[in-house]
């Protein structure tokens, strides 16, 4: 075979336009948006880009970002989970009651709360697949119902505090020592570079095209620089928060699962064309149920992280704009509401966008009424872009 067939050529302008039409913009609009946000809020308030505030931003991101990862699982199937906020709050309350009131071991309390969340997801999934209820209705009922259960469990008091020096609170008040943070950066970058080299070798050996070498190295260098930049900034304050590492690990694991396992492949297939998936012998029902279980479990875990940060649970846990933010994060990051398209990294970028906007407005003392409207407008914009892209690809 001649060498020129072995290097995958970059897209021609025509193909690039076709990709844009399909809404396959990659991460660039989001990165552009982030720069714009940084510029706007940075000039309006000198505190916005300070190390302390960026560290707070990282802490704020983790909980809602984790919920958003779950939302992505159902969005990939073209379904929706409106109950994620309530389930996160309920799960946090269950964990807190077991841990504080019943004096359980905190890890066991978290595990049982997550199991409860998984059971809720299973129920949603079965109602959707067996009773053929639209996911929108199932999880809308869940939104109200699970919040009702949360209020019932909290009872009259309405607030339960977590011990400040306990395991759960410590989760969000643990900071990586500098050496560990830098080791992590080096390990991640080296790991990615190594896997890139191995894949290139294997593809060459199998006579398959490889992307141009400079592109691969540019990406590795970009990742390394981004990680190093983040660690440098965070180190100027309290260091890299454990919470951010936990969220980052979830993103990476979920992305690997979706891209490299049969379950991930079938999830995209069901989201793209459920009938085709069914005819190919895929158990569509099982994939759907699993997606709802994952969504609820991740929502539950996000609730635990949120409780850890607040060191308490109360009647507002999992309420207000958390659900909206989680959905917005997924969609802003490029996950399609129509199913079949999106990646977990989307949640990372999307939550960065929506949380910076919220954080910036909080710094500027913008009233929550305005904040809600702005968040909703950003979500509407992201959905509009998604819908237009879909219209473009359906032509």
């Amino acid at each position, binding site marked *: 075979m001649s060498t020129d067939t072995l290097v995958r050529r970059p897209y021609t302008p025509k*193909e690039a336009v*076709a990709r844009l039409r399909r809404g396959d913009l990659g991460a660039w609009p989001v990165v552009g948006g982030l720069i714009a946000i940084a510029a706007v809020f940075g000039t309006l308030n000198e505190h916005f880009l300070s190390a302390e505030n960026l560290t707070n931003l990282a802490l704020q991101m983790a909980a809602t970002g984790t919920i958003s990862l779950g939302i992505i699982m159902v969005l990939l199937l073209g379904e929706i989970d409106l109950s994620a906020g309530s389930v996160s709050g309920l799960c946090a309350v269950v964990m807190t009651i077991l841990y504080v009131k019943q004096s359980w071991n905190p890890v066991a309390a978290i595990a049982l709360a997550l199991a409860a969340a998984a059971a809720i997801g299973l129920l949603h999934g079965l109602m959707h697949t067996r009773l053929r209820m639209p996911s929108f209705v199932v999880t809308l009922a869940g939104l109200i119902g699970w919040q009702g259960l949360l209020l019932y469990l909290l009872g009259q008091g309405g607030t339960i505090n977590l011990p400040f020096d306990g395991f759960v609170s410590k989760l969000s008040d643990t900071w990586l020592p500098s050496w560990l943070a830098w080791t992590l950066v080096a390990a991640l970058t080296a790991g990615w570079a190594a896997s890139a080299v191995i894949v290139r070798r294997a593809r060459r050996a199998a006579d398959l095209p490889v992307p141009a070498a400079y592109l691969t190295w540019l990406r590795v260098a970009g990742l390394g620089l981004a990680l190093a930049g983040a660690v440098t900034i965070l180190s100027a304050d309290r260091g890299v928060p454990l919470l951010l590492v936990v969220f980052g690990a979830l993103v990476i694991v979920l992305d690997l699962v979706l891209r490299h*396992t*049969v379950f991930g492949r079938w999830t995209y297939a069901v989201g793209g064309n459920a009938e*085709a*998936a069914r*005819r*190919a012998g*895929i158990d569509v029902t099982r994939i759907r149920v699993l997606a709802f279980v994952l969504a609820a479990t991740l929502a539950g875990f996000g609730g635990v992280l949120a409780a850890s940060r607040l060191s308490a649970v109360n009647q507002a846990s999992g309420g207000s704009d958390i659900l909206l933010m989680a959905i917005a994060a997924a969609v802003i990051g490029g996950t399609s509401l129509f199913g079949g398209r999106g990646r977990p990294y989307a949640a990372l970028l999307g939550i960065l966008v929506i949380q910076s906007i919220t954080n910036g407005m909080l710094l500027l003392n913008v009233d929550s009424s305005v904040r809600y409207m702005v968040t909703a407008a950003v979500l509407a914009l992201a959905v509009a872009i998604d819908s237009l892209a879909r219209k473009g*690809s359906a032509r």
Partner: protein
Amino acid sequence: MFSVTGISKTYGAVQALDQVSLDLRAGEVVALVGDNGAGKSTLVKALSGAITPDTGAITVDGSRVRIATPRDAQALGVSTVYQDLALCENLDVVANLYLGSEHRRWSVLGHLRMERAARDLLTSLDVRIRDIRVPVAMLSGGQRQSVAIARALIGRPRLVILDEPTAALGVEQTAQVLDLIRRLRERGLAVLVISHNLADVRAVSDRVVVLRLGRNAGEFRTAATSQEAIVAAITGAITHEH
């Protein structure tokens, strides 16, 4: 090789198939033609396990078989390309070819193995797609049809059934797909093509089987038959030779 004898199927008051027989041999392309409602799809569904006929027998290599589910059909080496192709537009060509039968180890996908095998398969069928890692949404109609047909070959079938493979295609792409069908014949597969287009039928088939109102209404060697004779059998202008 595959032989259908005396198959009947009724839907309520409608007799969709009435004592229909059909023989399919390795290395032969058979065209199944007939007016709308003649029973073509029902016959295909009986072969691919989508329905079970009321009476009649299906034999493979002389022994009687039961095709009750799509899995039974698959196990017997029957592979069907439906008219709506059933591709996932968001997945790339490799993923579509192996959908549901992915190479895997501990449920981790064998990307390279599949991509390599996919490339080799498409090359052997002379299907030209520049980058098989792009989503199917970016391919032309002819390329999609080719992917759907190539996909039918993944499970190493003995019989490939194609429902209206050229209905949605332009002239050039139709020619490509007809070439592809000839290549299936060269591979020694039995091929059954449903088509409305008699020009395509004459171009690609060895034998034409006509259904009319759920009954056999004629069988012709393509090379020795005029288009008028086939049309007459389809419309019922002559009685069939049996």
